[in-house]
């Protein structure tokens, strides 16, 4: 393009107004960049903090990263209940529990329930 070489005669000179406004626009744009950078920084911190809290909550609920949300065993879920009962029976029958119950009256009470 050879536009820069062409000479065009303006019949109204607005260079001064245009330049003044360009400087104001620059100042406004600069102020906006400073303001937005501040906001971006604080929002990034907030985002990091929120992500950390979310990860902590997920860990507490034993949900693997990217896994389905934690759901408690439903009383309706008979297979789940049966599995748990089976586990409890195995624990009660284990040598460790039986040996510990010899020395703990509290454990004996719990096992008796």
């Amino acid at each position, binding site marked *: 393009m050879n536009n820069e070489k*062409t000479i*065009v*005669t303006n*019949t109204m000179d607005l260079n001064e*107004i245009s330049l003044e406004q360009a400087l104001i*626009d620059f100042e406004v744009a600069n102020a906006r960049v400073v303001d937005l950078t501040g906001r971006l920084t604080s929002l990034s911190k907030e985002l990091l903090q929120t992500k950390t809290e979310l990860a902590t909550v997920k860990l507490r609920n034993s949900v693997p990263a990217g896994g389905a949300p934690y759901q408690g065993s439903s009383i309706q879920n008979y297979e789940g209940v049966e599995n748990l009962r089976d586990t409890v029976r195995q624990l009660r029958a284990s040598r460790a529990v039986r040996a510990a119950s010899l020395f703990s009256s509290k454990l004996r009470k719990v096992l008796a329930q």
Partner: protein
Amino acid sequence: MTRPRILHCITVYNGRAFVPAAINSALHLDKSAADIDVLVLDDASPEPGWSEELAVFCQERGAFYYRTPRNLGIPRNVNLGMLTALKRGYDYVVISNSDVLYPSDLMSTMLPVARQPGVGSVTAWSNNVSLYSLPNLDPNRHLKDQEVVNWLHSTLKGHFGHAAMDIPAGISFCLLISTDVIKEVGIMDPCFGRGYCEETDWSLRSLAAGYRICLAPGTFVFHHGRGSNVDAGIVSKNLTTVPGNEAIIDLRYPQFRQQVEAFVHSGILARAHEDAISCIARSAAQQFGYSIEQGSIEKNNLDEDRVQVQLSPDGYSHTAQVSFRGFRLAIPFDPTDAQNSIQTYFQREPSTTSLLSVKNGDASLRQLDKNKARYPSLI
């Protein structure tokens, strides 16, 4: 009251095909109500030789011309016009696109509307003014003519007078703003980059400052639409807006879309459209005559220069379709006395009437014009 001074700014980017007509049209604006200076703001058009040509064109005709050293984009180019008006003592500024034709009598309606209490900006009515557009089948074919624009404006002015319709946002294809309002509200926000939505933002800022945003239904400015913007690559040929700029509006004014929907569903606009087209059809019929025809007989080419009334174009309803220069209007009629009911609507006799008459099971075309001398070429 002293005569107001208006700076009429036309923003230009390329547009060799339509800009001269817009400038000529602006230079012929009637100056009896105000002193009007026309300023052409060329936003560094890249088309080879165009800026030089345009500068000479403006100089020869007495329009002010300014080419920016580099491309500013629409909002900042518009700002140049607003600031010039403000700093050089004008009372009003018109922000206008370059693909338009103004009626010579435009300011006799725009100014009285702008002077109404609380009005901050006035948008002219047009075939292409966003959602407010006056519906027309093919405006470029039927309305792109200075005489037609003058006639439409004068007709709408006669019906709506200096009425001001409050609208959700102004459209800067032809927007009149008082410089006092600019002092308070400021100029367009350059964050809208190369353009689109900047006037919505400005309008909503003016509304927040307590000003009314109005449309003048008693005006008509022809607007080709998107001429410069497609040229500038701001919008593609398939898009009518800039999504990024709409997102800014959504962020700043979360209720704006609902306000627009509420306005559309209020029925004000639909009523204004119907009133306007009815008024155009009646005036045209009064001045140029009209014909009544059997609507169920299909015609390939309607003569859009005259008013034509087609009875029951769908073949069964008691509705007639009125056509004139791309405008369409449905009006009810009495099937037992079609001619009289149409005549009552237009308050004059039709020039020609061609109806299909069925007698004793024999269909024939019946000519009902006054002298009953000739049959129309319907079949």
